[in-house]
């Protein structure tokens, strides 16, 4: 019997506190206005990330090109320098062998 009474008491219909409906409606409105902000933030973050990654990739390509060019220049410079030094050494050796 007690159990039945307890259940009835627990499940009886109760009116919500005054202002409950308006609080719920306010909350729903707040959530709806917040959602578009989140969406724009996500788009802005994606665009920023794309720009940063794109810039970084472009910088890497530029660096690679510059590096390859610098390498070619080093090889050319060392070849010219080596050629002249070797020529001078050969001439000196030839003079030495004539003496």
């Amino acid at each position, binding site marked *: 019997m007690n159990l039945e009474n307890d259940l009835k008491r627990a499940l009886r219909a109760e009116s919500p506190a005054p202002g409950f409906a308006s609080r719920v409606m306010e909350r729903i409105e707040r959530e709806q206005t917040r959602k578009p902000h989140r969406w724009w933030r996500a788009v802005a973050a994606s665009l920023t990330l794309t720009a940063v990654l794109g810039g970084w990739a472009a910088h890497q390509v530029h660096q690679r090109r510059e590096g390859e060019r610098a390498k070619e220049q080093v090889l*050319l410079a060392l070849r010219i320098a080596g050629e*002249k030094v070797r020529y001078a050494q050969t001439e000196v050796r030839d003079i030495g062998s004539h003496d």
Partner: protein
Amino acid sequence: MRKVLIAVALMLALAVPASAQKLNLDFPELAERADEVVDVTLDATMLKLAAKFFSGRDPDERAIRDMINGLQGIYVRSYEFKSAGAYDARLIDRVKSQLGPNWKPLVTVRSRTKDNVNIMADLRGENIVGLVIIAAEPREFTVVNIVGNIDIDRLAQLQGEFGIPRIMKDKDDDDE
């Protein structure tokens, strides 16, 4: 304060001879008249960048990488002319006049028909910290300035080895 001043003075004293090694190799009058021009300007930053592109696995490339790691600059100017006597031979003196008291002639080759080569080194103790090569032929004038520690014998070995490509001179007309 005194320590700071001493440190600054030391830094200046070290910086002056290091910067003095780089020569003025601008010969605009030659560039205008030359048939072919080679202009290589590699400062420390460019050399550092280039070094990254030499493979550490390939022994030839590693040797070049090790060589350029000790350098602060490589500057080459080479001018080839259609006819002989197109440049003033006093240019050699103009380059030599820029060299300080540490610079000593290593090799001087004089020839009527082939290259006249002057090799001078900036000697600090037993170390060569700078090198200038002036090669004057009847139809060609070349100056090479290497700034930094350089092994001259190793440099001579580079010619025709280490996969160093044939000289490809830029046509002056192409640059314009």
